[in-house]
């Protein structure tokens, strides 16, 4: 039964994992996302659905537990915050290379290094350009509400299994910590062992007699075969780029200017759009939902229809703005505004940046 609740973003993510029929969560506490594992431990999902929850000895161990369980056909996830996500990158690269489905969340805090525990969006490059080694991509979903923290768990698992790819929910300290009303989706039953064996012919569940054994690996010492494997991965990323782009356009129909933002920055930008409209400025919001794949085609199409300027608003010194520039490709003005290091910008600051850098600039 769908259910209305007041929850923190991190709690909604955790509850959604149970409802999405996840088989396991492996994690390690870190601020500002420790509520995920705390909620899961308190909820006793082993009694509710049979889901396993384990606190690992490190983020590295947690992501490798995910690798093992995902390689055995189970629906598994982990979560962390920026420094912990850096530690997981080796495992994520292996997961991408071995083509395993998994979901993980990054509740981003300010960096670099240990940085701060305050919100940030400075992990955009790491998330969208491949944080670990090798030529790989992952699907990146950017929730802008507690509702989406829950919904994207379900969507993320679906995409992960559809493409056998790691899917990242790129959240931030604002979305993770704030409380909002959330409509929780109806629980999806966990797959039975027989269903897993039937649905996932690649999963290592023990070699049955008369069948080919299954191997999960990212290694091939023959570089020609490795190039072939890379071609296959690239074809998959191309398909994802063509089919899985998601975004939301707010007040863009008559807009002369567009603010591009995702996550909590998009919420702030939405308020800035209202402030601007009150002053008679025709501005809209292009809210990114998937960061990879990036909605380049739509953005380019918009700039061909008379948009005079794009303001990329993000809590970083300018990472997403590079993808906006690539999409716009010189056909319109692009500028960046963002506070960073754990500082969250205000709608007024965004409006001021729009007026100075785009309209007046």
């Amino acid at each position, binding site marked *: 039964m769908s259910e209305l609740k007041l929850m923190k973003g991190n709690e909604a993510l955790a509850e959604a994992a149970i409802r999405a029929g996840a088989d396991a969560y492996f994690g390690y506490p870190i601020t500002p996302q420790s509520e995920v594992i705390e909620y899961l431990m308190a909820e006793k999902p082993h009694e509710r659905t049979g889901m396993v929850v384990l606190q690992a000895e490190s983020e590295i161990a947690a992501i*490798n537990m*995910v*690798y093992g*369980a995902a390689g055995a056909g189970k629906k598994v996830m982990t979560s962390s915050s920026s420094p912990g996500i850096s530690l997981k990158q080796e495992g994520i690269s292996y997961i991408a290379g071995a083509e395993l489905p998994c979901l993980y969340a990054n509740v981003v805090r300010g960096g670099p290094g240990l940085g701060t525990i305050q919100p940030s969006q400075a992990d955009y490059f790491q998330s969208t350009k491949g944080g670990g080694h090798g030529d790989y991509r992952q699907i990146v979903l950017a929730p802008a509400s507690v509702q989406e923290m829950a919904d994207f768990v379900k969507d993320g698992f679906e995409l992960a299994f559809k493409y056998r790819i790691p899917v990242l929910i790129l959240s931030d300290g604002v979305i993770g910590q704030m409380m909002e009303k959330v409509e929780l989706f109806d629980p999806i039953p966990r797959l039975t062992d027989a269903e897993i064996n039937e649905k996932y012919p690649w999963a290592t569940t*023990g070699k049955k007699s008369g069948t080919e054994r299954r191997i999960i*690996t990212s290694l091939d010492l023959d570089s020609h075969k490795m190039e072939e494997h890379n071609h296959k991965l690239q074809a998959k990323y191309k398909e994802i780029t063509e089919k899985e782009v998601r975004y939301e356009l707010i007040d863009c129909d008559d807009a002369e200017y567009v603010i591009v933002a995702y996550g909590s920055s998009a919420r702030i930008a939405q308020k800035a759009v209202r402030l601007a409209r009150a002053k008679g400025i025709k501005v809209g919001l292009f809210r990114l939902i998937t960061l990879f794949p990036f909605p380049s085609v739509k953005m380019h199409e918009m700039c061909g229809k008379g948009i005079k300027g794009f303001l990329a608003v993000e809590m970083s010194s300018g990472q997403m703005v590079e993808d906006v520039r690539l999409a716009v490709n010189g056909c319109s003005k692009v500028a960046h505004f963002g506070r960073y290091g754990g500082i969250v910008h205000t709608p007024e600051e965004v409006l001021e940046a729009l007026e100075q850098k785009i309209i007046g600039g």
Partner: protein
Amino acid sequence: MADITLDQIIKPENLVYTKTKLMTDKVLSYCPGCGHGTAHRITMEVIEELGLEEQTIGIAPVGCSVLAYEFMNIDMQQAAHGRAPAVATGIKRVWPDKIVFSYQGDGDLAAIGTNETIHACNRGENIVIIFINNGIYGMTGGQMAPTTLIGMKSSTSPFGRDAQRMGNPLKITELVAQLPGTYFVTRQAVHTPANVRKTKRAIKKAFENQRDGKPGVSFVEIVSNCNSGWKMTPRDANTWMEENMFPFYPLGDIKVDGKLV
């Protein structure tokens, strides 16, 4: 003496040995004289003899045995360097009825993966860990390992391991035996027929423990040679191992049925 043809020899009644069907026909990538091939074979023989092949998932490490999955004819996963016990934990926790084992070398298990080793052992994961200790990094060309003996030469200790500058060899097997989460801890070798038989019995016990749900890790160390890395003939390497490795890494059971011997 009359000429004997192959047809006369190849008959069922003449068959005295055949390799387990759980080893593939792929030619082993190991150096002649290396203990890995024997360790692979007896592990697979045990799984076949116990009838566990349809429910077993093995984990290959990074190191010389990175390609173990090419030789072991069962479902396998290849893990990141040192992470095999975490990968094994992930599989065993979501498939508690399966048999899960990792096969790891000394660099993998006792250097880069020490954390994963100790914590999997301390949590008492119901898995088997097979640990090949040859005191050197074979695959990368003979560098110092966490288990390299004092005075032993390697490409990164060319004048011999010096404790003051390079630290001491790590007896990780004695260390994990101290943890409440290990059920069976033993150290064996595979350089003589007698040792092969003893080691096979130990591996069998380890898998039986897991099959029977005995609580905790069953940990089998195999002290082995690396004639290429040690720059010796296989025969000299075995003699050197007996004279130098065994005094520091004594063979025998360390913990049986959850109790220190």
